[in-house]
């Protein structure tokens, strides 16, 4: 039986607080943790498969029509089984939730690095060598690769205005009018994209490294020309995704085509250098931010205009101003995103698309405003918290920015700060602190899950993925809480399209969406148990394997002697988003040291305080926040995917050249959660946490750089040369 829920209205019942098992909200271990550290959790390229062939993608070294003059020589090389130049090869990874094939074709390259062939051989080494030997000749065509060199598209639905911002700027007591830039960035997930495809003449089975299987199945089926029922995808363990594995990737389609053509299993692993090119990057942005405020720092106007880029025919554009729509009150507003159609590698969703770069730049501007107005940066934010959604007038479902700011400031010791820059020096190092607010939209998407309650425990199933986030742990806790079982009696099976379609991992919606489906499945089982016992579900207590009501205590085994009880949960977003504005909020605080000679920056400590509804597992939630904050360090200081100015290719496409923060860059990180119950967030009152931690984190660091040294860096990342260039003498 299925329990359906459409989220149309608030649920004030707070049922999790009444349940007896006491595991939801606790620091439960990840059940997959041991397998991961011991190496027994297999990632996409680690599955043992007999008769396996190896495929290596061949990249286009230019933009234009492609020919391979020595194709037949390469086909004759030792061990080579095929060189696929198939029109169904995909140009780049599909966008998140595309649900259909992305742009396809191998005859021409739209960007440098596009995969235009797959070489398949008996060994990986043979395939790699043959791929290198394959001569790829490009009839180079003129294609713009610089976003500032083209007339951008100005889509109507991405522009909005209220009041008169120009007038507000002219009349304001204090203004900020500045341009901020962020570079292309890469998810650089630890596990490179990889796929192993098997074809039995009827059904294609693919072991992939993917985030959203129900969409990926349709994308793959559409790409290779099979009906979706003939495609099964499995991804039980995924070594990070951060958006780069939302859509079907080039390795999957190529492996599938090769397996179908050769009738043998084929594995394709993207080389680390492919990873930076053929999957989606975070677009570079150019952000023009205008702030108008009265003498008390109350915003009278705000403007946020962004330029981003993508390849022709890609529907995604980085939604830079998404957070600015609701972050602060101001009567006069102008927001917009423009898109430059250029021939760099495709851009797409990367952890917190929109707010990660948009909030970061906006919070840099807010710091400049605080400085100019002579108002404490925390106080400035507090003064501008809107009472309702500033544009639609809808109420907020819940708003805990004030608490995040004040509790965070208190825990960080913000009051000890000196407002003026360049006040504290240790040797060559200037020391200072900075802060920023964090904002992120909250989403629920359709999801299903099934629980089977058996005498030996419960089994939860969904095609939902765990990309390192903690899905396995959380679903075990939810089912355990509802059914009165300790989590070790709940086995969670994920990442298989044979299971009910979950939400997939993306947009921070996994735990709350698929988690709610698990909740509903558990509720359905409780309903059936109550029916068997002749009581009302709300009167039933399930704890430690016992069903308790009135003064009866019945072991669950007894109730299940006739067979397992199944429950199916199905959640859908309703019209809640038309009634309320829902978001998550937080605040970041950072202390940094800036070398006055070399411009090097070292983060000395960071604290983030976050409000994201009920925290289902503080350990996995904290770990998500740590990841976001560390990425903030990268965004502020080190990460930049450089494009060649002539042909747009990704120049520094390896982990020695693309500088992710390393251990030595990461100081102690503190995370605190602000208590929140958002009744509009479904029966568990839980919201997304996976992306909030990155939003604005980099701004806190750069604002601290200013407070420490007086260097105001508006072009990210703040590498030593950029710091020196803005350091006062």
């Amino acid at each position, binding site marked *: 039986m299925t329990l359906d829920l459409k989220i149309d209205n608030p649920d004030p019942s707070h049922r999790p607080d009444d349940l007896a098992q006491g595991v939801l909200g606790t620091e439960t271990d990840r059940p997959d943790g041991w397998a991961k550290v011991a190496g027994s959790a297999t990632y996409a390229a680690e599955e043992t498969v007999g008769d396996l062939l190896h495929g290596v993608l061949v990249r286009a070294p230019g933009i234009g029509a492609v020919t391979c003059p020595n194709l037949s020589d390469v086909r004759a090389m030792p061990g080579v089984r095929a060189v696929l130049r198939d029109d169904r090869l995909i140009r780049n990874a599909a966008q998140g939730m595309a649900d259909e094939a992305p742009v396809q074709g191998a005859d021409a390259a739209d960007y440098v690095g596009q995969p235009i062939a797959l070489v398949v051989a008996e060994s990986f080494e043979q395939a790699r*060598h043959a791929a290198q030997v394959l001569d790829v000749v490009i009839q180079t065509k003129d294609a713009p690769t610089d976003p500032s060199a083209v007339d951008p598209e100005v889509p109507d639905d991405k522009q909005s205005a209220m009041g008169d911002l120009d007038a507000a700027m002219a009349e304001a007591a204090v203004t900020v009018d500045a341009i901020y830039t962020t570079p292309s960035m890469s998810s650089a997930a630890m596990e490179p994209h990889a796929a192993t495809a098997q074809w039995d003449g009827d059904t294609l089975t693919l072991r992939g490294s993917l985030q959203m299987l129900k969409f990926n199945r349709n994308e793959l089926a559409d790409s290779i020309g099979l009906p979706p029922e003939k495609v099964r995808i499995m991804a039980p363990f995924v070594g990070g995704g951060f958006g780069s594995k939302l859509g079907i990737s080039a390795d999957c389609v190529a492996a599938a085509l090769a397996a179908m053509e050769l009738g043998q299993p084929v594995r394709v692993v993207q080389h680390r250098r492919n990873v930076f090119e053929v999957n989606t990057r975070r677009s570079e942005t150019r952000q023009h931010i205008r702030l108008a405020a009265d003498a008390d720092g109350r915003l009278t106007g705000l403007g946020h205009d962004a330029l981003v880029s993508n390849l022709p025919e890609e529907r995604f554009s980085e939604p830079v101003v998404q957070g600015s729509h609701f972050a602060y009150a101001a009567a006069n507003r102008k927001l917009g995103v423009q898109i430059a159609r250029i021939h760099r590698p495709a851009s797409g969703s990367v952890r917190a698309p929109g707010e990660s770069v948009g909030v970061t730049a906006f919070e840099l501007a807010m710091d400049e405003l605080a400085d100019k107005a002579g108002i404490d940066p925390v106080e400035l934010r507090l003064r501008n918290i809107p009472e309702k959604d500033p544009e639609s007038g809808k109420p907020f479902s819940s708003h805990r920015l004030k608490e995040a700011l004040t509790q965070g400031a208190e825990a960080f010791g913000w009051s000890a700060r000196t407002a003026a820059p360049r006040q504290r020096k240790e040797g060559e190092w200037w020391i200072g602190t900075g802060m920023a607010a964090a904002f992120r939209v909250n989403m629920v998407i359709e999801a299903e899950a099934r629980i089977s309650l058996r005498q030996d425990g419960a089994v939860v199933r969904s095609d939902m993925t765990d990309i390192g986030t903690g899905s396995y742990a959380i679903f075990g806790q939810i089912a355990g809480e509802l059914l009165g079982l300790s989590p070790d009696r709940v086995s969670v099976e994920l990442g298989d399209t044979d299971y009910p379609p979950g939400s997939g991992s993306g947009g921070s919606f996994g735990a709350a969406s698929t988690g709610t489906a698990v909740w509903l499945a558990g509720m359905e089982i409780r309903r059936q148990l109550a029916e068997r016992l002749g009581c009302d579900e709300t009167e039933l207590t399930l704890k430690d394997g016992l069903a308790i009501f009135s003064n009866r205590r019945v072991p669950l085994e007894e109730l299940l002697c006739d067979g397992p009880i199944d429950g199916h949960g199905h959640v859908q977003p309703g019209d809640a988003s038309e009634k309320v504005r829902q978001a998550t909020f937080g605040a970041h605080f950072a202390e940094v040291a800036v070398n006055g000679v070399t411009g090097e920056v070292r983060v000395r400590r960071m604290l983030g305080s976050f409000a994201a509804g009920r925290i289902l597992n503080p350990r996995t939630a904290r770990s998500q926040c740590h990841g976001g904050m560390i990425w903030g360090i990268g965004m502020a200081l*080190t990460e930049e995917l450089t494009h060649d100015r002539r042909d747009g290719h990704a120049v520094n496409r390896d982990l020695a050249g693309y500088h992710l923060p390393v251990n030595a860059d990461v100081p102690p990180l503190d995370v605190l959660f602000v208590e929140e119950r958002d009744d509009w967030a479904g029966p568990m009152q839980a919201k997304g946490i996976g992306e909030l931690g990155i939003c604005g984190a980099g701004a806190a660091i750069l604002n601290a750089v200013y407070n420490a040294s007086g260097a105001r860096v508006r072009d990210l990342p703040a*590498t030593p040369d950029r710091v020196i260039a803005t350091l006062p003498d």
Partner: protein
Amino acid sequence: MRPFDYQRAEDTAAARTASRAGATILAGGTNLLDLMKLEVMAPERVVDISRLGLNRITEKDGGLHIGATVTNSDLAADMRIRRDYPVLSRALLAGASGQLRNKATTGGNLLQRTRCPYFYDTGTACNKRTPGEGCAAIGGELRNHAILGTSEHCVALHPSDMAVAMRALDAMVEVEGEDGTRREVALDDFYRLPGDRPDIETTLAPGDLITGVTLPAPLEGRQQYRKVRDRASYAFALVSIAAIVRMEDGRIADATLAFGGIGTRPWRDPEMETLLKGERPSAALFAKAADVLMRHAAVHPGLEFKLTLVTRLLSATLEEMTE
């Protein structure tokens, strides 16, 4: 990776013979294997020298002899190095990561290839990879590139930290030639400037094997290695300085300065060192020294920051070491 033959040499003669016959020497492999996977280097044969017993550090003529396969980790941790040649220990520890230093060898570090991304990218033109093909780096995205010693054919940087410290220490490279005779080559004569053959990086002849590096008796004075990089660890130098400074009566008696991150080879400038010698330290003197160092700089777009950075770092280093 192109298929290749692997041979493990049992003695230096076997290694030389193999090398003369066209085999490429494999030491720690931390650079060579990466380049082979990308087919930037595609030797048909490699000869492994890890079992030649060249992994010892011994005393020699008041200085030290470092075997060619002594790892960067072992060298950095050696008590004699830490005590008498701290600049070298610090330079080593500022390089790469712990795992890489455990594999990387002294000889391999000297001969590591540039990190110019265009050199690594067989989809672009590179004179160092294929002489005469052109240089895609010039006119492209420059950061880890040189401003001294460059030519119109190549702006690739020598990326080593270790070699910068060795250059300041007047280290000699011990080479066993084709016929088995050993000779010593000063680091100053070891690295070539790129000119029109950037593919030829040293004065080594085919069949030459590096057997070790000799450090002369320790110098008097203070030693320092400073490295500016894009992240706190595991990044190549934007600019680095190995400095050995001896003061006498408030004057600079000797200043030996070698630079990384700016030259096509580990850089030293005798004229600049002479300028400092016998002078009283002052901001004006340090600024003049930087001007002398930079007098022949060829600064391509994107590298302007190196002028500022090297000037600031040089002044701060000298200020600290002469106080």
